[in-house]
């Protein structure tokens, strides 16, 4: 009985120290654990993000361009600025995401870009003779500003990845303002061809709107 108590206490101490290290970063195992807060990480990437593979569903894409942002926040600075040169295409993903892996080759092919899934990439690409700002943002490795942009463009409040966003400009009651559309997951489609076609439709719509309204757009 005494032996068992010793085992229990030893286990509890070991668990408590390890847990404290994980959550509060006492830096006991500095070389083993990377520098990030596990509580925030679990909160941001697992609990607050809708796990599309856990629900075995893909959101149905509605490609209407809207002005109102997903969380009501203002468009980020990099978007306002980049819109002076062309529309934006942003692909949000995370490390562990089957649908992201399925969609990545299609995106790479459309924009003729290459990237590793962990990296965050920005590139000005030529698409049908027009500059498009291409962003590949992995939320597990992105900057805070990039992470903050995710709920802004989560049009349908899905909170899931992958999320594909096209940001362009459009006329609204006398002014030309940024507008955007978002599509999610494998776009609710079965084949790569259908998915590719839908993404191209989405980008083409964004390009068309940009060409129609670019003259009236003013960077504040």
């Amino acid at each position, binding site marked *: 009985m005494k032996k068992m*108590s010793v085992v229990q206490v030893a286990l509890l101490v070991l668990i408590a120290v390890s847990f404290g290290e994980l959550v509060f970063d006492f830096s006991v195992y500095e070389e083993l654990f990377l520098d990030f807060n596990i509580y925030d990480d679990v909160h941001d990437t697992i*609990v607050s993000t809708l796990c599309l593979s856990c629900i075995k*569903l893909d959101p149905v894409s509605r490609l209407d361009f809207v002005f109102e942002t997903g969380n009501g926040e203002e468009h980020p600075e990099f978007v306002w600025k980049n819109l002076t040169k062309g529309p934006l295409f942003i692909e949000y993903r995370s490390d562990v995401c089957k649908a992201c892996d399925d969609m990545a080759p299609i995106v790479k092919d459309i924009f003729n870009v290459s990237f590793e899934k962990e990296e965050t990439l920005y590139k000005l690409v030529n698409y049908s003779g027009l500059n498009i700002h291409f962003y590949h943002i992995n939320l597990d490795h992105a900057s805070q500003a990039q992470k903050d942009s995710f709920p802004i463009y989560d049009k349908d409040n899905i909170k899931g990845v992958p999320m594909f966003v096209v940001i362009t400009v459009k006329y609204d009651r006398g002014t030309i303002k940024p507008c955007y559309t978002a599509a999610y997951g494998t776009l609710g489609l079965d084949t790569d061809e259908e998915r590719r076609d839908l993404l191209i439709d989405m980008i083409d719509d964004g390009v068309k709107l940009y060409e129609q309204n670019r003259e009236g757009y003013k960077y504040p």
Partner: protein
Amino acid sequence: MNLRFRRLISQVVFFFSANLGFKIEGIFPGLKTGFCYPFFYCHACPSATAACPLRAIEIGVYEGKWNWKLIFYPILIISFVGVISGRGVCGWACPIGLLQRVTGKVAKKLKKKQPFLKKLGQHRLEPYLRYLKYIVFIGLVVVTPILVGFMFTDICPVGYLVGTIPISILNPGEFSPNEFFYIALVIFILFIVLIFTVERGWCRYLCPIGAMLAPFNKVSKYQVSVDKDQCIHCNICSNEACPMGIDVPNMERDPECILCGKCIEACPKDVIKFEGR
């Protein structure tokens, strides 16, 4: 207050604690924490408060990228609970345990009416089926995510029950099935059949969290113990009471025991009790 009622209160309290993530505009902001549940529940549930420990482990090992923090975090939470109460969390806290408390009543009646089910429960291979949960845990939560990127949570029936169904109801027409949807549907139907035909069938045979907690019964502070000298071997505890089908009079820190205390209540000689040692 009898044990059964106390356990019901505990299960209901934990059920609501696990579901404080719902948002009521202007009234309640919704509580989304960065913890992992120490029991089986899915963070894809619209009202989930914490993360599924299995998903955290899967992400931690996914494609051999060892994210040690994400692997150890849920394991440590479960270990802490395990050292204190072993699989007591299955009996007293798990929402899926609460669900099986309801379905178990049907399973018990069916067992009495259908001799086939009784025979199945007494089959010599039945104890071996209990090892399936370890295979599910090691195989689908650890090995396949590393090797092929396939995860248990892709087909998890609990995710289907508390994630897929409510989200489909709350957002009609906004989602379409993905590639695992129909496989998960079949597994979900089998899950429902299992819990309605075998009392605590999910906990006995397939629950990966149960597999993580079970070894802690060997060292846990709290356990159910039997005074073997006083026991008259009437077997009411095993045959009538125990939802996990344990041979209670002969058990010694059995990894299957969920500390539900049904055997304690059923014992006519009061020789079974909770013990903290």
